[in-house]
């Protein structure tokens, strides 16, 4: 019999830690190969870790709700199977093993009346308090600890007091979004440039062909693949590679492939599945990939890696009818393009006549460290032009 | 049998003191002893400096005190007295006769059985009645069951009766300090005579020759304790010897005798001779307090003798014979009834004091 470790998996290129949300098996439980062992989440997604072996769950090493670095052992499994040497560890000690003695006078959770009052006055909730490490007896948080923490804390007293509000517990997703957005705003100097594309041709074609397209491809034709395609075309031009890149402290990295993030709005918040190597996909494949990921996101079935590793993101700022927005970059990407609502407008044509056209605003936010203003503006115009002169011939081919 | 007036300063031998039975001798009114400086000296009324009106006044205060206390008893049974009440039935001659000898500038330090003494000093009936009912209109506005109007130069006692003796000595010290010629009359009892404070206070007054007259009212009982369990000396007046001061033993049922001796003692005290101790023998013709079932422990023969030595009746009988008509007596009693009715009406109308007021009175400003 061998003992194997189950490790915290890496769920995305920039992910360094994961949180065990729930153990689905208890110590001593028999395990089938591929059986879900625990539920976990990363900054990007929620996922389940499956047992790679048939055997028995010998020991849980990381309790639920704990966050550990990627690669940390989560559990030990005893199995009769042959396992790779690097997974094998010493057999589990007998269950009689003594739990680590609690420190005498363990008081990490104790809050003095003074600390409680100061926390309440400063709008620091109990949950937030519980995250502070204390220097008092038994590790309790002292007033001084809290004062130090408050000095480094961004929010001030000007906020309305928590007593005046309904308390909505933070969902994991909301917290992740918040962390990501703070990171975005904190690490990246951003600006947004606006342009308007004439989508009349595409709107007309789509109206005519969407049924047929669905019949042929099984894809419900939205405008997203058109915008994605136009963006990919623009990104393929050498002068716009900088928008598909990443800022490094020593250099700027221009990616060869475009891993296109498609923001999907869910009730709980936004998630960004990624179409990998999108630059090489045909329109139909691109549309299929987008639909698949979007569906999986809505169903909560996204695999961790499917929501990680993007190089450029498309988002929708027009779902509620807005023409423009100022989207925040999804770090460490260099740009995000927000599509506004399509609406009919009276426009002056080059010949001086007027016409009613279907128009759409494009809001492009870029990392100003890499992208200069004129490059951003030019890129945005290029995307507009790609949409206005969209190659519908290819599409027609695919429908025949 | 009319009382036999003993000649003053009749020498008696020490042996007679051994056979002294206060109760029997008092009842028979033949007590005539004088050992060392201890005197039993009821004087003939003819030698007193009292005018006709003084006799009526003395009687009025005794009768008023008696009637007031009887009215308190009625009010108590009606549930109008919140705490308890102490009566001085049987000591009216002592209370009235002694305080009648005081000058206005003198200080009276009474006990809880000396209600008539307050009246002699000028205590108005309405606040006194309101005091018993615990009302805002009472003398100390419901703060304490004991009372005294300071403006009448009366000290308010505390229940530790012996403790009042050093306090009285202090009042006498102040009189000497100021040299104002005033004196202090303090009333205490056979029970308080056993306390250390009796000794400490009287000794202090004796050492510093302070103008203090201390009357020990020996009424045979300290609550339920008989005097044979209270002290072992022949009598309390004899104790004066131990302080190098004069002592008197007097018949406390004879208002004129009490007046005369107290007056003499006060004038001696004023002269700087030091304090004087007077033992007054008179009955406590009631219980310790209004709750006290004295019948359970006071011998029947003693209770049955109370009438014969009732100081109010004795004085009334004497006045009727020599100084005052039946009609005048009825007239006085009518006045007393009227005054008491007015006092009761006032007291009942007086509001109760308000709780928060007490917070203001903890410290003097």
């Amino acid at each position: 019999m061998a003992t194997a470790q189950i490790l915290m998996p890496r769920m995305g290129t920039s992910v360094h830690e994961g949180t065990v949300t729930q153990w689905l098996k208890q110590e001593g439980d028999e395990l089938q190969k591929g059986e879900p062992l625990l539920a976990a989440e990363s900054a990007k997604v929620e996922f389940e870790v499956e047992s790679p072996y048939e055997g028995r769950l010998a020991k849980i090493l990381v309790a639920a709700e704990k966050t550990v670095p990627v690669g940390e052992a989560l559990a030990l499994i005893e199995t009769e199977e042959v396992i790779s040497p690097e997974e094998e560890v010493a057999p589990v000690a007998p269950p009689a093993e003594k739990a680590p003695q609690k420190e005498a006078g363990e008081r990490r959770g104790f809050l003095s009346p003074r600390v409680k009052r100061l926390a309440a006055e400063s709008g620091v909730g109990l949950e937030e308090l519980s995250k502070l490490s204390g220097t008092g007896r038994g590790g309790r948080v002292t007033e001084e600890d809290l004062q130090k923490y408050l000095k480094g804390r961004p929010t001030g007293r000007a906020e309305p007091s928590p007593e005046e509000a309904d308390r909505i517990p933070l969902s994991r997703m909301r917290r992740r979004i918040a962390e990501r957005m703070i990171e975005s705003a904190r690490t990246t100097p951003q600006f947004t440039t606006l342009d308007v594309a004439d989508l009349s041709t595409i709107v007309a074609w789509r109206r005519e062909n969407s049924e047929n397209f669905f019949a042929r491809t099984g894809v419900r034709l939205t405008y997203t693949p058109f915008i994605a395609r136009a963006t990919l075309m623009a990104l393929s031009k050498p002068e716009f590679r900088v928008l598909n890149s990443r800022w490094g402290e020593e250099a700027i990295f221009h990616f060869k492939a475009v891993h296109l993030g498609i923001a999907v709005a869910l009730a709980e918040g936004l998630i960004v599945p990624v179409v990998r190597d999108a630059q090489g996909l045909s329109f139909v494949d691109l549309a299929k990939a987008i639909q698949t990921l979007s569906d999986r996101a809505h169903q909560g079935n996204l695999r961790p890696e499917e929501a990680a590793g993007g190089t450029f993101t498309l988002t929708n700022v027009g779902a509620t009818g807005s023409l423009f927005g100022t989207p925040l970059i999804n770090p460490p990407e260099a740009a995000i393009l927000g599509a506004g609502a399509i609406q009919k407008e009276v426009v002056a044509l080059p010949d001086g006549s007027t016409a009613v056209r279907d128009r759409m605003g494009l809001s492009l936010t870029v990392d100003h460290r890499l992208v200069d203003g004129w490059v951003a503006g030019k890129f945005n115009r290029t995307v507009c032009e790609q949409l206005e002169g969209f190659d519908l011939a290819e599409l027609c081919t695919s429908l025949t | 049998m009319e009382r036999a007036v003993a000649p003053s300063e009749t020498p008696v031998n020490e042996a007679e003191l051994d056979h002294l039975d206060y109760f029997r001798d008092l009842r028979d009114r033949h007590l005539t002893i004088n050992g060392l400086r201890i005197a039993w000296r009821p004087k003939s009324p003819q030698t007193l400096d009292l005018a006709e009106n003084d006799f009526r006044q003395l009687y009025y205060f005794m009768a008023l005190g008696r009637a007031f206390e009887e009215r308190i008893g009625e009010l108590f049974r009606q549930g109008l007295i919140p705490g308890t009440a102490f009566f001085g039935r049987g000591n009216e001659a002592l209370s009235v006769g002694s305080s009648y000898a005081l000058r206005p500038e003198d200080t009276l330090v009474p006990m809880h059985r000396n209600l008539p003494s307050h009246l002699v000093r000028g205590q108005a009936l309405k606040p006194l009645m309101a005091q018993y009912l615990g009302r805002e209109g009472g003398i100390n506005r419901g703060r304490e069951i004991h009372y005294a109007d300071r403006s009448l130069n009366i000290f308010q006692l505390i229940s530790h009766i012996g403790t009042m003796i050093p306090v009285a000595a202090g009042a006498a010290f102040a009189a000497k300090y100021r040299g104002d010629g005033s004196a202090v009359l303090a009333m205490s009892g056979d029970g308080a005579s056993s306390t250390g404070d009796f000794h400490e206070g009287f000794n202090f007054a004796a050492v510093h020759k302070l103008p203090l007259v201390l009357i020990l009212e020996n009424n045979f009982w300290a609550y339920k304790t008989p005097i044979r369990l209270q002290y072992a000396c022949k009598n309390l007046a004899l104790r004066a010897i131990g302080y190098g001061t004069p002592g008197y033993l007097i018949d406390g049922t004879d208002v004129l005798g009490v007046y005369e001796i107290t007056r003499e003692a006060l004038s001696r005290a004023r002269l700087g001779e030091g304090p004087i101790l007077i033992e007054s023998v008179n009955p406590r013709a009631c219980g310790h307090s209004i709750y006290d079932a004295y019948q359970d422990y006071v011998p029947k023969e003693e209770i049955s003798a109370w009438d014969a030595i009732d100081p109010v009746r004795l004085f009334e009988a004497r006045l009727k014979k020599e100084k005052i008509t039946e009609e005048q007596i009825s007239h006085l009693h009518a006045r007393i009834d009227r005054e008491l009715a007015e006092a009761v009406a006032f007291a009942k109308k007086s509001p109760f004091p308000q709780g928060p007021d007490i917070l203001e009175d903890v410290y003097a400003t």
Partner: protein
Amino acid sequence: MAQLTYRQAITTALWEEMKRDPEVYLIGEDIGLGGGAFGVTKGFLDAFGAMRVVDAPLAESGFVGAAVGAAHKGLRAVVEMQFADFITETFKMLVDYAAGAHFRGAGPVPITIRLPAGALKSAGPYHSHNPEAWFYHTPGLKVVAPATPYDAKGLLKAAIRDNNPVLFLEYKRLYNLPLSQIPEVLRPEVPEGDWTVPIGKGRIIREGKHLTIITHGTTLYDALQAAETLSDEGIEVEVVDLRSILPFDRELILSSVKKTGRVLIVHEDHKTGGVGAEWAALIAEEAFESLDAPIHRVGALDTPIPYSPPLEEYFLPNTQKIVEALRKLSAY
């Protein structure tokens, strides 16, 4: 302006008040012919005469009672208890009579009882007591406890002028303390002239932000030394001298506790039922949410006062015990 010793400050206050007010007089044992057991009233008999410097019989209840009775007549006695311990002789006179006299309507009792208090090198159980807790429970009394020459003079004058019975604790240990041994902060100049220290007001002797010591009397000296030690360790201790302990400076206690959040209460008297318990209760009632640590107390042990030096040292609070308590509180 002068620097006075503790004893000189008391003597000076008595002298000035006797001169100022002919109704102020002294009474006690051995104070006239003997000049007082500690020499505080030496020379007073000659200067003021036997009517104003009264050698009383050895009977505390008797002469305190006399002082009370004379007070009803407007005189102001300054009573010397030869030792604070002997005040038990006159307990009822103070607690039953004097304390409530004004409230009962019996009239004010403007008397001051001087109480040579505290331990003094193997003085034993009848010459070492700190009597304040015996009287703390009695509304109507005032209790002051000066620890410095300045406060001794100012508070004694205030006590004599007060219209209530005031127990004036004076510390035998401080009588002979040479000026050179009194810390700078505790020996401000003692001015002449007509001034008093208000009864009921404490004083911050040393400012600090981490911990508060609340104390009075002799332990103020120990507390200051302890604060010095802790300061070397980077912990700033605020030292509050209450000076008056009934009534006491509630606002000062509360404001210091609100500032530091950690409190050590120190007094020379026994810990259990000592006056510090009342301050701890006040803090718990009024400043609970300011506390960052439990309230601690240092006081004498709960044993009768022992005689032999090592026993007495073990029994009494001292600087080292305070330092240890401060460290414990600081580490909480």
